[in-house]
């Protein structure tokens, strides 16, 4: 049995619910409740409808422990909805529910936390260096970051429902396999442009603060080298961005 084509309303409801996938996050089931919440609109299409035996059994299955990158959770939500509506064997759905957590977390973390977030931070830093006002810098960061992650959510839900339990092929898409490396290269380029521009932006036309800025940069470099691998890149990027905005506001 193949899964039916989802009505637009159902897809839209699933997508909107994906925005709240971590809304009921807890240390027992992590984002399990959120996954069930996002799959639920599709489960209403099961024989017996909302409240029927299959609906209730499926909700109970999807409500268990689940952990993945929130921006790629749509891939799991789509695949699980397809599996439930296709009548795939229950044990296979349960094993998939467990097995897809790790890969979705791994791919999503590399693409978003270690790739897209630092890249967007550096883009905002570059804009600051080019003279954009602080509010503009913040809006640029939020805008670019969220355009990317919303697109990832939409693609994940669509690809997951299309592929069902064969979703590993979607995880092999060039965007996900090569994306992190490409984003890292782009980030390196942005860093090379953004950091000197930001330093110039902080120093301003008078160069009294030049020594302080270079001393701070040297200390930062030592800290980075000392804690290499033990601090998360996205945290550093966000702290650096916040510091530059703070300095620009204070000045």
């Amino acid at each position, binding site marked *: 049995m193949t899964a039916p084509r989802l009505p637009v309303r159902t897809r839209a409801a699933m997508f909107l619910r994906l925005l709240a996938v971590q809304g009921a996050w807890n240390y027992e089931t*992590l984002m399990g409740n959120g996954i069930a919440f996002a799959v639920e609109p599709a489960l209403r299409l099961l024989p017996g409808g909302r409240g029927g035996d299959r609906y209730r059994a499926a909700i109970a299955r999807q409500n268990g*422990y689940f952990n993945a990158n929130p921006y790629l959770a749509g891939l799991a939500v789509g695949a699980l909805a397809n599996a439930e509506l296709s009548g795939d064997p229950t044990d296979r759905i349960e094993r998939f529910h467990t*097995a897809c957590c*790790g*890969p979705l977390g*791994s791919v999503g973390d590399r693409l978003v936390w270690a790739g897209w977030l630092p890249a967007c931070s550096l883009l905002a830093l570059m804009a600051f260096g080019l003279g954009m006002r602080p509010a503009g810098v913040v809006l640029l960061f939020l805008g670019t970051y969220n355009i990317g992650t919303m697109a990832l959510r939409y693609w994940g839900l669509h690809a997951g429902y299309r592929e069902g339990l064969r979703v*590993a092929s979607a*995880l092999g898409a060039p965007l996900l*396999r090569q994306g*992190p490396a490409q984003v890292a290269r782009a980030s390196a380029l942005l860093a090379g442009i953004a950091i000197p521009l930001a330093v110039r932006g902080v120093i301003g036309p008078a160069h009294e603060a030049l020594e302080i800025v270079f001393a701070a940069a040297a200390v930062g470099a030592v800290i980075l080298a000392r804690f290499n691998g033990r601090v998360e890149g996205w945290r550093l990027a966000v702290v650096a961005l916040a510091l530059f905005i703070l300095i620009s506001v204070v000045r």
Partner: protein
Amino acid sequence: MPIELYRIDDRLVHGQVVVGWGQPLNITFVVLVDDIIATSDWEQELYRMGAPPEMTVTFETVESATAKLAEYQSRAAHGILLAGDIDTMRRLVERSGTINHVNIGGIHHRAGRTARLRYVFLTPEEEVSLREMGAGGVTITAQDVPATTPVPLDEVLAGTGE
């Protein structure tokens, strides 16, 4: 160093392993030990997709991992050995006799388990198993990512999940 980390984590290949540990330890191969996944093609394909292209993932049963462990340990490249549950790691530890340090990276909630750390939930049987492994000379610590402090087994078992 051959295998840098012997980790128990029910999520197996995931972000904390690939990014959190993989980058600072320069990991290029993962040995995933699980008797069921080692015979399941679709699950293997899924887990392979979780690793970056430059990182290889090899699937072993406890028996085959025991047989090949010396080879993995003698490699020049750095690797991580992953088991999804305590029983799998314990059998491997007992059969190989060459594993001295086990990392608990994540054992999550299910019926019958009690919270010990935020990322470690254990049944009474699992606690006994960990104690016995520790009594056998294996150093067991809980640490989800390198940026956190390792928690010794005694502290883990005395924890309340906070």
